[in-house]
């Protein structure tokens, strides 16, 4: 948000930091972070947040830039609206609604990441129930009792699918007020 609106050196510094994070493959970076922080629910969340923030930062900056140069921002400046008020009243609401849509659709993606890490034994550890862990544990019984691996897999699929559909609904609802915003 700051990079997009302030521009100049602030923008350049923040975006180069993002570029550094982009040079590592996300999953490898998450593995590295969990390796440092150790396994466990809290650490997995921190690792995934740290590896994905740059992607969100880029998107928010891009959105801020598209709104920053709209005529209504110029009109608001000409009417005496201050910088903070412009951000809060004119830029934040459309950026936030776009971000909520993206985040909702991304929940499924993040769940797959967590499950992937748990499958490798680096995420959530037993006795906390987790579908990735269940799939990992059920590998040995895949030929004798395939339903043990099928059900957690099915649940991951259904949950990710549900969040994607919720994302679609959220987009339709939030976009209806600000026609022409996107």
């Amino acid at each position, binding site marked *: 948000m700051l990079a997009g609106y302030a521009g100049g050196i602030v923008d350049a510094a923040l975006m180069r930091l993002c570029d550094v994070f982009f040079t590592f493959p996300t999953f490898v970076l998450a593995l590295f972070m969990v390796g440092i922080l150790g396994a466990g629910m809290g650490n997995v969340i921190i690792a995934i947040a740290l590896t994905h923030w740059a992607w969100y930062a880029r998107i928010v900056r891009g959105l801020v830039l598209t709104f920053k140069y709209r005529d209504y921002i110029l*009109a608001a400046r000409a009417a005496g*609206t201050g910088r903070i008020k412009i951000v809060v009243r004119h830029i934040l609401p459309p950026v936030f609604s776009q971000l909520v849509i993206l985040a909702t659709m991304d929940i499924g993606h993040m769940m797959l990441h967590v499950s992937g890490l748990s499958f490798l034994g680096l995420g959530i550890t037993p006795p906390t129930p987790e579908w990735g862990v269940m799939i990992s544990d059920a590998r040995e019984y895949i030929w004798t009792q395939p339903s043990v691996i099928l059900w957690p897999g099915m649940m991951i699929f259904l949950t990710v699918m549900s969040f994607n559909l919720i994302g679609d609904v959220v987009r339709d609802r939030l976009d209806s007020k600000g026609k022409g*915003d996107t």
Partner: protein
Amino acid sequence: MNLMEMREVGKTYRRGSVFRSGLPLDALKNINFQIRQGGSVGLIGRSGSGKSTLCRLLLGLEKTSRGQVIYRGKDLAAFSKADWRSFRRRVQVVFQNALGSVNPRFTVQEIIIEPLLNYSTLTKGEKERKSAALLEQVGLRASEGTKLPHQVSGGELQRICIARALALGPEMIILDEAVSSLDMLIQSQILNLLKDLKRSFGVTYLFISHDLRIVSWFCDEILVLEEGRLVTRVRDLQEIEEDSDPALKELMASVLPPWPRQEGKGDRHAGRIRRRDRRCCPDAAL
């Protein structure tokens, strides 16, 4: 007394790419003019002649590359925070693109009262009363206040933008093609309202337009901008017709006559059209 002034103003943009250094593009060159308090200055020119750039420089929304923009004897570049606050309150603008210059998420009422909220706090009732009064001033119903911008027509939206510019009771209004999208009836209604404000409160105008007839009717002085330069200045329609500047001649030639002029041999319809014109508009000077 001069309210606003441009002294030797120039604006250069740079267009470049990763592989090529930017070539300078002079949008405005050596602009000098004054707007006296209570006056109305017209600015005409073809698309791309630099009219909107000049408008943004006058408003301090962009910085000049050269020269000074002066408001009440003080350079905009030397303005303090308090100066800007006072300037923004006193100088208002109506942009060309009505749909683009309103937040699509705001209701008409929120759009109109936005300038007021920057300078005072209003109760819900005061907001409704103010917005209703401003809407009626520009010929719209107070009930329009609850609508969103995409629910009103382009002409209505332009009037909403004019109402927003009037909200703070400014001493100067810059109208950037503000009435071009309105039909003739609404145009005359808005122009009469603006003239009334000039008579009653001494509001100063900078009227940017393509329409020579409106500019010559509304303004005391007309500046002609061509490829970023002020090429000539005239006072009225007669001076426009007498002026030999090719840019002005070209603009004159592009003005459509209010009725068909074709009257060749064997043109049976021309006389009938003229007779009908006389019946419809007896005062029309044929």
